[in-house]
């Protein structure tokens, strides 16, 4: 069969496909050059930082580079008994070099992350090492402090041998690698991150739900009202976009504080007693209220753009065929808005999950999210690798949600506008 298919030639005798490619090449190059600046911009501002973040979050070269000979010598050590003289000698050699460079302090900080108690014994070792004699370093080092004779501490050093580590990720999940090399959870009273992750998911979920419940009727009104009114309503929806996020959050602080307008109103209509004003700020309520209001347009706009395309005759058809207004809505109108619902929910959820300023200002202790924790490590503890790890965990969480959405609803079924 295939032998019968003749290659189609142009009038000049060139195969048609070749000729077509040649004719389109110029346009393709032009098109590429047009998008090239944007591509470059994206690579510089997006791909590089994320790559760097990924690298930073797993990078553990510092200790590897500080103790190269030690780790080489440790390759043959089984970790059961104390290491033999070869390892101690290598460690001594590395350590002397570090002392010369005045970097032994960094080593002690790093090793202390892995196991508490390294700080003091490294200080002691530095002082003692000046009087060390050549040979039999094992005895000499062990005599500096009894911890140096403890196999646990040597195992702790060994755990820092790999260039890359997942320990920041484990820390983000309130877990760590214990002395036996097993992954375990930290003690109950020190688990702070899991609570934050769950709270982030919870707040993002409910903010999405609230936004959906409020945006659906608004978007429907926008799509069905006569132009004159819908334009005005549209401006009302978009107005928050024209105001700084900080200003909006600050105005929520004015509204929600205990002596604020909302509380005054509640007291005024006798809903609450004057001496028992509810706290609506510096807790979850504050985050819910402010975030819902701020993210509302992101739900309204995709819903509106989808609803605008639904012909009013469909609802009429549903009714004329015998469906009650509710049936016509539920079976005809609602399914057609699903692409908009999907887009809006995805957008709001993803924005909410990484929200920072608003929860930081009105969330208080019980209303802060994981992003506030990331910011804390970026600015205060300067543990950037941990911040990177949590940022990436957040990113992968978003990707998982996106994947789930694609599985359940289908991503081609999304309509952003």
């Amino acid at each position, binding site marked *: 069969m295939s032998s019968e298919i003749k290659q189609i030639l142009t009038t000049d005798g060139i195969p048609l496909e070749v000729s077509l490619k040649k004719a389109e090449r110029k346009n393709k190059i032009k098109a590429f050059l047009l998008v090239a600046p944007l591509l470059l911009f994206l690579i510089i501002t997006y791909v590089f930082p994320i790559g760097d973040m990924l690298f930073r979050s797993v990078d553990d070269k510092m200790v590897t580079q500080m103790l190269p000979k030690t780790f080489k010598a440790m390759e043959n050590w089984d970790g059961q008994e104390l290491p033999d003289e070869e390892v101690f000698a290598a460690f001594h050699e590395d350590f002397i070099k570090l002392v010369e460079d005045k970097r032994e302090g960094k080593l002690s900080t790093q090793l202390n992350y892995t196991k508490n108690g390294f700080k003091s014994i490294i200080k002691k070792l530095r002082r003692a090492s000046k009087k060390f004699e050549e040979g039999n370093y094992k005895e000499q080092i062990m005599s500096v402090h009894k911890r140096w004779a403890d196999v646990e501490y040597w195992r702790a050093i060994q755990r820092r041998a790999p260039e890359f580590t997942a320990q920041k990720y484990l820390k983000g999940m309130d877990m760590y690698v214990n002395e036996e090399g097993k992954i375990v959870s930290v003690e109950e009273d020190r688990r702070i991150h899991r609570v934050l992750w769950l709270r982030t998911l919870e707040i993002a979920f409910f903010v999405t739900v609230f936004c959906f419940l409020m945006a659906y009727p608004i978007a429907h009104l926008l799509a069905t009202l006569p132009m004159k009114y819908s334009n005005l309503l549209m401006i009302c929806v978009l107005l928050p976009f024209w105001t700084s996020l900080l200003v909006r959050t600050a105005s929520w602080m004015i509204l929600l504080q205990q002596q604020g307008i909302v509380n005054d109103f509640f007291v005024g209509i006798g809903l609450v007693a004057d001496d028992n004003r509810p706290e609506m700020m510096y807790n979850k309520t504050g985050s819910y209220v402010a975030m819902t209001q701020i993210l509302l347009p992101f739900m309204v706009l995709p819903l509106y753009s989808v609803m605008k395309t639904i*012909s009013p*005759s*469909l609802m*009429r058809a549903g*009714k004329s*065929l*015998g*469906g009650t207004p509710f049936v016509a809505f539920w079976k005809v109108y609602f399914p057609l808005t699903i692409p908009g619902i999907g887009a809006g929910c995805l957008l709001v959820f993803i924005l909410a999950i990484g929200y920072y300023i608003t929860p930081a200002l009105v969330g208080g202790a019980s209303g802060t999210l994981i992003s506030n924790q990331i910011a804390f490590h970026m600015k205060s503890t300067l543990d950037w690798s941990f911040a990177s790890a949590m940022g990436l965990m957040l990113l992968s969480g978003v990707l998982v949600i996106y994947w789930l959405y694609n599985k359940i609803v289908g991503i081609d079924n999304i309509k952003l506008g």
Partner: protein
Amino acid sequence: MASKKDFVKFDKVDKSYDGKVLVVKDLQLDIAEGEFITMLGPSGSGKTTCLMMLAGFETPTNGEIYLDGKAISSIPPHKRGIGMVFQNYALFPHMTVYENLAFPLRVRKIPKDEADKKIDKALSMVSLQGFAARMPGQLSGGQQQRVAVARSLVFDPQLVLMDEPLGALDKNLRESMQYEIKHIHESIGVTVVYVTHDQSEALTMSNRIAVFNDGKVQQLSSPDELYEKPVNSFVAEFIGENNTFGGEVSDISGGKCKVKLANAEILANPISVKGKGERTTVSLRPERALINPSTKMDNLHKGKIEEVIYHGDHTRVRINLLGNPEFILKVPNSSSNLDIKLGNEINIGWNSDDARALDPK
């Protein structure tokens, strides 16, 4: 078949949207059971409003509509049991053809096996068997139209409303669909109220046509009567082609009248003129006038050929006749020996019966 003369009854119905202008004025209309009635009129004439009031999407400002003897103004659309075909089909795009047709049956809680039979029957009626699993988007315009028709009929309504259902189709498809809808109507005997602005569609399909203009029914009669015997100049003008002479009645006697034109006098059939001195517009269908008539006709005048347009089966000839430069004649192309050449003077004759003296324009 036809049992009730006033199956649908519009009783003194007025409709206004803004409280200033009446879109429908004092509408009085009876539709018999099993009838195919078309509401025909230019856009803005109130015909679609009437249909929407019947369907229940608009409420009459005044008056009442009766369906099978019951006043329906207070019944919501979904309880009226009226099938409807919309202008752009209004098929549910997220449902298959089967689900579209099942929708009215499901809301009526008809058991599945019975519903399946009805759906099969409805699909075979529009010759779309085997399309049940398709989505509306995978169908051509004509197929979507047929699904819409099938959906409006699948729950056996007594009354089906069609709102310019063929407006979006191309000419050939529109014509074949006209016959198809007509045949469906004939075979199941449902009452159909059809809205269109296309007069040839109305003439092809209907038992009776209600010509709307300015919120009022101008004439309600069968297609042939509407064409042959228009009662006023709007209908004469709106339906088919029409030659007109404006003049003044100079004599009226014995079922005939003389109409004085600017520079001649013609004999006409007095329809809406009562006495001498009235202004009138005489309407004459192009095919009623003959060139060099062989039989005797009581109007015979000379005209000059201004334009000849070949139309395949016939030739249209524009003649300057009695001061009217737009006088149109249709000459069948079989009559070859007529001397139709540009600039020729020819004799044109017609019977005064066919020249209807109507209200002045």
